[in-house]
């Protein structure tokens, strides 16, 4: 039934985002980029794609950081173009996409403040999609309760912060716990939102968010092997919307090394193939690469259905992957170390 009413508020944006998706770089574009010798060559090749002259005003010895910044700027301008014109429920959906970047920015600022860095040097490092006005006042907080009451209570992150306020102090370990708790609440809220937006949106976004939840659980487990994180604390950080809930998560809580994690993943068909062929040898892919590949696969499926909101999320994530690819290729070119230049993740044929 969504197809009857969807177009009245969001039809134009769906058409626009599908047009933008057609401009995502293909394998032939990546092959051309890999053959560039310098970053100026790269800029020339990018001019023939949908990127056009986005690097036109930059000074001649290009740096990879400049390319990265300009890529982000382009994505943010496309996102804002759609966000500013949209109405409910698309505007809520787009806001939810930006919350994950807001969480990253908040944690970045808190960590930076703990290490006695100036707020003015931290703000440029924040992701532009996750900027909000109260971000600049974050440095005054010294405990989570104060952070919540004075800064975050009026921001969209307030409902996610409720569970973290009981933490005692802001120190290094607790920052990661706060980050993961915020992200868990965010994922579960996002899943509830997708449920309320109709069957086709849930059909598309459900697998994507479930995979994200499982991926976070696996990463939390692997990263906590040598740390002081207890088993109960680990369980509290796992998001519950994924396929691993509840049995997989219970098993993950008991894992003590990577082989245990691989054994847990074997119970789930999709994750078993992600853990196969993973290694640190020269020709192998890392687990993170496999996760990115699977994420790209799920995001491409989002474009198979019309009249749903998942295309907006999928486009942002695919563009992010494209940005990572271009930055990887640029780094390889800049450092003249082209051995692993083909380790980008291809998106469209």
């Amino acid at each position, binding site marked *: 039934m969504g197809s*009857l009413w969807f*177009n009245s508020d969001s*039809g134009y944006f769906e*058409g626009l985002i*599908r047009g933008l998706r*057609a401009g995502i770089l293909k394998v032939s574009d990546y092959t051309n980029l890999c053959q560039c010798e310098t970053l100026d060559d790269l800029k020339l090749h990018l001019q023939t794609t949908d990127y056009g002259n986005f690097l036109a005003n930059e000074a001649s010895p290009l740096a990879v950081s400049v390319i990265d910044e300009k890529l982000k700027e382009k994505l943010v301008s496309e996102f804002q173009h759609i966000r500013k014109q949209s109405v409910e429920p698309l505007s809520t959906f787009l806001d939810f996409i930006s919350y994950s970047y807001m969480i990253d920015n908040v944690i970045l600022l808190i960590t930076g403040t703990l290490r006695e860095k100036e707020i003015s040097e931290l703000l440029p490092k924040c992701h532009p999609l996750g900027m909000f006005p109260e971000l600049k006042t974050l440095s005054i907080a010294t405990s989570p309760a104060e952070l919540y009451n004075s800064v975050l209570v009026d921001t969209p992150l307030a409902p996610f912060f409720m569970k973290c306020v009981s933490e005692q102090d802001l120190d290094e370990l607790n920052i990661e716990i706060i980050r993961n708790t915020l992200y868990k609440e965010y994922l579960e809220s996002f899943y509830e939102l997708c449920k309320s937006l109709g069957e086709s949106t849930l059909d598309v976004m459900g697998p994507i968010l479930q995979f994200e939840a499982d991926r976070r659980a696996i990463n939390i487990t692997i990263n906590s092997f040598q740390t002081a994180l207890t088993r109960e604390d680990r369980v509290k950080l796992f998001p519950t919307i994924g396929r691993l809930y509840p049995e997989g998560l219970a098993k993950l809580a008991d894992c003590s090394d990577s082989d245990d994690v691989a054994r847990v993943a074997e119970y789930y068909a999709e994750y078993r193939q992600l853990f196969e062929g993973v290694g640190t040898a020269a020709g192998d892919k890392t687990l993170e690469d496999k996760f990115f590949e699977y994420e790209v696969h799920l995001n491409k499926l989002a474009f198979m259905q019309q009249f749903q909101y998942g295309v907006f999320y999928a486009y942002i994530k695919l563009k992010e992957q494209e940005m990572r690819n271009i930055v990887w290729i640029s780094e390889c070119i800049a450092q003249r170390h082209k051995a692993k230049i083909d380790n980008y993740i291809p998106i469209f044929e």
Partner: protein
Amino acid sequence: MSAYCTGIYGLGLATLTGLTFVGLFMMLTGWGYRFDVGQFLAETSPYMWASLGVAIAISMSVVGAAWGIFITGSSILGGGVMAPRIKTKNLISIIFCEAVAIYGIIMAIVFHNNIKGFQSHTDPYQYPGTVSVENIAAGYQIFGGGLTTGFCNLVCGVCVGIVGSGAALADAQNGSLFVKVLIIEIFGSAIGLFGIIIAIIQTQGADMGKAV
């Protein structure tokens, strides 16, 4: 969407409650014999039924056409930003939706030509206050024809609209797909034609004001 569903359910529930309340009230206060569905059907004027038929024919057709046009039009606008070549070709989808509204107008005019003045009965002294059977039948026939054409065109317009939206977005990605999806639209458009053919057959013998 769920707001619309609850709205329609609420309306239906309200109507049912209203009718039940009125019926019970009349029965319990001794006026039960006046709650007479048969009398209602036999004594309402054929003009009311016929005019309702004309109204439903044109208004539901226009709702269907408008629905289809906004579904297709917004997709053409969105797709045309990054692929301007689709703009002109995809106006065909809009024309198919518009055709649905034109079917509605034609049928409304055809029905309206059947609505004529009539004497109440060929023999008003023998049957005072009654309406002759042909006139009542004509009223119902036109009402039925209007319902048929109205609802067929409503769904036809929506169908052509949704397919047209898909056609525009597919054309924006790959130009060779447009003609293939257009064939689907043509089949969808045929549904509206079925509606008006049946409506014409329904109102075939509708004859108000038959000469005495």
